[in-house]
């Protein structure tokens, strides 16, 4: 078995902590990772190709199936791109509700991340705590659009549904709960010695290097690069709210953890502001019955929970489906940094780092 000093093991595609069907081929020296190769594509469903043969509205529900833990954000990114292509205006109320949904979705996605990340490092209770809160968000979404995972909750030009009466109150209640619970998570983990030892100085990546390798989202901000598309290229209604962008310093797993935990609080803050200032009015703009954007192409990116989700869409102006539909999946680009991050670390850190990048294989493989 130890014919050479190096042992090659296959982590995945069926492995409890690769968050799906990721396969990482590790070349180990003892338990230390010498080299690694990330093999993806096990969940490739050809969503891009499929979308090129669906009409513009049908694609919304395909975007649900990419990052299935943050479906609303995917919908938002797609709808905004098409709106940009068509130069459509979205009513203010719709933009506010979109913001609320996107931020709730961010909290839900971060809950799932926190749970699985903590579970990977062995703190099993945090997993269930985080899922308990995620469940509340899923309930809110269920009340809003009837679905719990794949929401199909946006439309080109606005929203399919207005919020039901009393929904905003429930969201407010949830915000109160969430604020407390984030403190609970922090109590369990933030100053826990074992947690610190497992995450500090693990997978350190400097800011410039993180930019070069294409990290985005909390993984990039953990390295101290202030890049948040909500601030830099405001979409939906983000330019009307006050919120901070948490930044890390060392660029290690612990910083990425802290950034995401602070994002919980900031998201709650945004949701509160949006609820306070929720304007009345229509929820969908003037959209032609047959959606057929003029010929042209555009790239539009928004800040998904996992990073920059960008849509590059080409319309030929003639058919009712996009000529080219391309997603820039944040998980895919973040996962690219994994071999760089795990090099020289131990097998146990591989697990922690996969968790720290917060990938969803449905999005990586599309």
């Amino acid at each position, binding site marked *: 078995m130890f*014919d050479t000093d190096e042992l090659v093991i296959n982590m995945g595609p069926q492995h409890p902590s690769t968050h799906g069907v990721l396969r990482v081929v590790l070349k180990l020296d003892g338990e230390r990772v010498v080299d690694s190769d990330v093999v993806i594509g096990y969940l490739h469903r050809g969503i891009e190709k499929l979308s090129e043969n669906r009409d513009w509205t049908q694609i919304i529900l395909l975007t649900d199936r990419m990052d299935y833990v943050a479906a609303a954000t995917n919908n938002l990114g797609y709808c905004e791109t098409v709106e940009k292509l068509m130069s459509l205006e979205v009513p203010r109320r719709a933009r506010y509700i979109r913001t609320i949904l996107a931020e709730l979705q961010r909290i839900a996605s971060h809950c799932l991340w926190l749970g699985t990340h903590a579970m990977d490092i062995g703190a099993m209770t945090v997993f269930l705590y985080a899922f308990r809160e995620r469940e509340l968000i899923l309930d809110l979404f269920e009340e809003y659009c009837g679905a719990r995972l794949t929401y199909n909750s946006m439309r080109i030009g606005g929203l399919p549904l207005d919020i039901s009466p009393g929904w905003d109150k429930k969201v407010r209640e949830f915000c109160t709960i969430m604020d407390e619970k984030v403190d609970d998570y922090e109590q369990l983990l933030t100053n826990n010695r074992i947690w610190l030892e497992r995450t500090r100085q693990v997978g350190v990546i400097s800011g410039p290097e993180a930019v070069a390798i294409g990290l985005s989202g909390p993984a990039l901000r953990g390295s101290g690069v202030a890049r948040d598309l909500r601030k830099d290229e405001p979409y939906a209604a983000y330019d009307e709210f006050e919120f901070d962008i948490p930044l890390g310093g060392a660029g290690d797993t612990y910083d990425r953890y802290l950034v995401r935990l602070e994002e919980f609080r900031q998201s709650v803050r945004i949701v509160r502001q949006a609820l306070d200032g929720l304007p009345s009015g229509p929820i969908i703009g003037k959209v032609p019955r047959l959606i057929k954007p003029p010929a042209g192409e555009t790239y539009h990116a928004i800040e998904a929970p996992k990073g920059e989700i960008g849509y590059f869409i080409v319309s030929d102006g003639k058919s009712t489906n996009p000529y080219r539909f391309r997603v820039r999946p944040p998980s895919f680009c973040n996962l690219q940094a994994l071999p760089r991050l795990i090099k020289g670390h131990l097998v146990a850190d591989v697990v922690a780092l996969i968790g720290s990048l917060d990938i969803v294989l449905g999005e990586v493989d599309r």
Partner: protein
Amino acid sequence: MAEAIAFYALSVLILGFAILVVSTRNTVHSVLFLVLNFLCVAALYVTLGAEFLAVIQVLVYAGGIVVLYLFVVMLVNLKRPPETHQDPRRQTLTGFVLAGLVLGELVAIAVYSALPPTPTGGVASVQGGNVERVGYALYVDYLIPFEVASMLLLVAMIGAIVLAKKEL
């Protein structure tokens, strides 16, 4: 009577496992038989009233040293069986001749000891206090050898680490 039964049973086990240790092809099995052999030897020590030594035998030999062997066996897992290589200078015959000589000596001892029955055998074993007496002997009467042994172990430990480490 009970002592005799225990002795013969344990002797058979000890010798049987010892033969298996040297004759088994699979090195891991060999190590396992060595453990069993040591456990039986420990049991023999108990019958001889040396409980402390029996426990040490299990703790140090079976629980420590042989685990080390097992580690090495697992690290040195060969693709080809190690016995295939035939050295022309290999002296299997001499080995058996030497073993035969020792066997002869053994027979001589047996015959010699069988002639005049030893009068002092079978004294009742010491009840309790064994640990204290061993401890006293070890730390008072044989303190210097004890310290030398500890130095030996220290040196061996450092040596083993130096040898086993890949690069210094």
